[in-house]
């Protein structure tokens, strides 16, 4: 039981029934061999492959000290001690990077659950050590988002019974109606156009946002993606064909302007001139991912945005800086853009990206 508690306190989700099963497993003979016992417990306690390593670590820590002779009554005090010790050491291992994030001025970590706090951590403030962890989490969450979007689209497909067609189809059977024909709402294809700012100021975010685009790609068959900084580059073909890591390489070589300055207005003009007629229509959503720190003319930006707005059904501007406390859209570019956009949201952490779901599913 002590072991259950230990695992539970470290992110493995374990219920009462799991403890019970573990005891049952132990009783049915598995306790006699430590390796078999470990495998057995692992299958009960873990619910995905990633948890295996955590489990193995705790199992070793716990049972090495206990030597798997289980005599609960006399050992209770020792057990708690062990738990405390292991807790202490594990927290020490994990806390280094947590503290770093704190120092960097991210939201305070309440000491509860690290994963939870990571979800809320600003991308730009993630310490290097946490990157891997965040990547993992991002993938998991984006997978979820992916799935939820799909479900919504499907649910809206259910239709009402189409009486007229039903009766016509059933005329031949006299007055027995048994062939009901349903009227399905036509599945509306809408196109998503994404413009991602990859200028220097967006450096810390652009990787995650690119990842986000990949997830969206699997939902919207009809997706157009562009990256811009001082010039505009269409990446639709790249994301359609290749995996994300390869694509990153390809894009780096393709665009010499990665991490350079920003001229949003000019890029949007380029977009309007070359692509907008082709890619924008009444059933398209335009998503602009940028911090709005523009070095170009604000008038041009506002004018070009207006053009886009006329052509598309919705303009969503996601600004990573909006996640910062006390942020006001004061940058002149952002200020100029505001009246022309429908939705202005933040995109600084995973949670805010997940929230975007609600805009995407009600178009």
């Amino acid at each position: 039981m002590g072991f259950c508690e230990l695992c539970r306190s470290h992110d493995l989700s374990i219920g009462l029934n799991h403890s019970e099963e573990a005891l049952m497993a132990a009783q049915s003979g598995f306790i006699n061999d430590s390796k078999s016992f470990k495998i057995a417990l692992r299958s009960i306690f873990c619910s995905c492959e990633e948890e295996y390593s955590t489990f193995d670590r705790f199992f070793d820590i716990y049972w090495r000290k206990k030597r798997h002779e289980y005599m609960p009554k006399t050992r209770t005090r020792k057990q708690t001690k062990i738990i405390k010790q292991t807790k202490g050491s594990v927290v020490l291992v994990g806390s280094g990077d947590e503290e770093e994030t704190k120092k960097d001025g991210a939201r305070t970590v309440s000491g509860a659950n690290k994963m939870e706090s990571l979800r809320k951590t600003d991308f730009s403030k993630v310490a290097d050590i946490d990157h891997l962890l965040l990547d993992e989490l991002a993938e998991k969450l984006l997978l979820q988002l992916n799935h939820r979007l799909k479900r919504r689209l499907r649910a809206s497909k259910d239709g009402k019974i189409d009486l007229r067609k039903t009766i016509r189809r059933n005329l031949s059977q006299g007055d027995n109606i048994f062939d009901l024909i349903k009227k399905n709402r036509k599945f509306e294809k809408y196109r998503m156009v994404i413009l991602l700012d990859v200028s220097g100021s967006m450096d810390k975010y652009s990787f995650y946002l690119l990842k986000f685009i990949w997830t969206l790609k699997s939902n919207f068959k009809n997706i157009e993606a562009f990256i811009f900084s001082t010039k505009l580059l269409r990446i639709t073909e790249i994301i359609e064909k290749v995996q994300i890591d390869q694509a990153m390489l390809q894009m780096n070589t393709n665009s010499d302007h990665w991490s350079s300055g920003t001229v949003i207005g000019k890029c949007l003009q380029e977009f309007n001139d070359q692509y907008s007629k082709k890619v924008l229509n009444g059933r398209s959503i335009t998503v602009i991912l940028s911090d709005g720190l523009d070095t170009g003319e604000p008038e041009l930006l506002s004018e070009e945005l207006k053009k886009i707005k006329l052509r598309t059904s919705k303009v969503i501007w996601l600004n990573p800086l909006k996640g910062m406390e006390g942020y006001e859209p004061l940058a002149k570019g952002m200020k100029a853009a505001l009246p022309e956009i429908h939705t202005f949201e933040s995109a600084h952490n995973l949670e805010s990206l997940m929230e975007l779901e609600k805009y995407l599913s009600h178009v």
Partner: protein
Amino acid sequence: MLPDIFQLIKKLDSLDYVVEEGLATILLLMLKLKKPLLLEGPPGVGKTEAAHIIASYLNTKLIRLQCYEGLDVNSAIYEWNYQKQLLSIKLTEGSELSPAEKESHIFGDEFLLKRPLLQAITESDKAPVLLIDEIDRADEEFEAFLLELLSAYQISIPEMGTIKANHIPIVVLTSNRTRELSDALKRRCLYHWVPYPEFQKELAIINKHLPDINQVLASQLVKFVQYLRSLKLDKSPGIAESIDWAEGLIALGAKTFTKDYIDKSLGVILKSDKDITNIRGQGIDSILNEIEA
């Protein structure tokens, strides 16, 4: 290793299924605890095969439900045989039966089409093995429904009442992990991750399937396949593909594992144009050298 596990491994081995200690332990645990088992892993590592083998080990029936997007209750549990019902209504039209009798007649057992889940529950002689394949392809709604089934082992049909399981079936779920399954479902299952096999195991599997194969050829082939898996391919080859490949090479009359034969039969093991061009571009010779080193 526990003697029970050792025996199980031996028994399965005699049924031509090579199983390592980890999986054998879990299988034994599943039989002891009578809990559903969730097997996750990349495609082609023998997850489905595990269920088949358990069924033949227990000498019982295997009932398989293949999941797909849009799988609904009608095709998973039961369906009324509407045509037969309509026909029966017409036939009894002139008879003296009261409406209540008619109704109970057309909702009788003979009009019920049993789909896999109901079949598994109503199996009368022996607990069957119920294989729910690729659960990750089914909708979340279906998953939620499964929860009910897996905890109570009963199904309610409005017209007939609740049907309880005669024997609790042995349930094996498999998933390729195209999406995360719900925590609630995972909580009810034992979990085992089935990885790609290690060199020795894969070699043993190939030997099991093709006892006459040239040993040098087999071990080189396995090395080659294992090397392919270490690359980032669009589609990594599974065990089934290695076996196919070995079979293919034998069919081509290959005695040795040379570039010529590999090049000809690359389509057996790699299923994407991009992967094939990649491997050819890399040079089969250089790969052969590398795995020999």
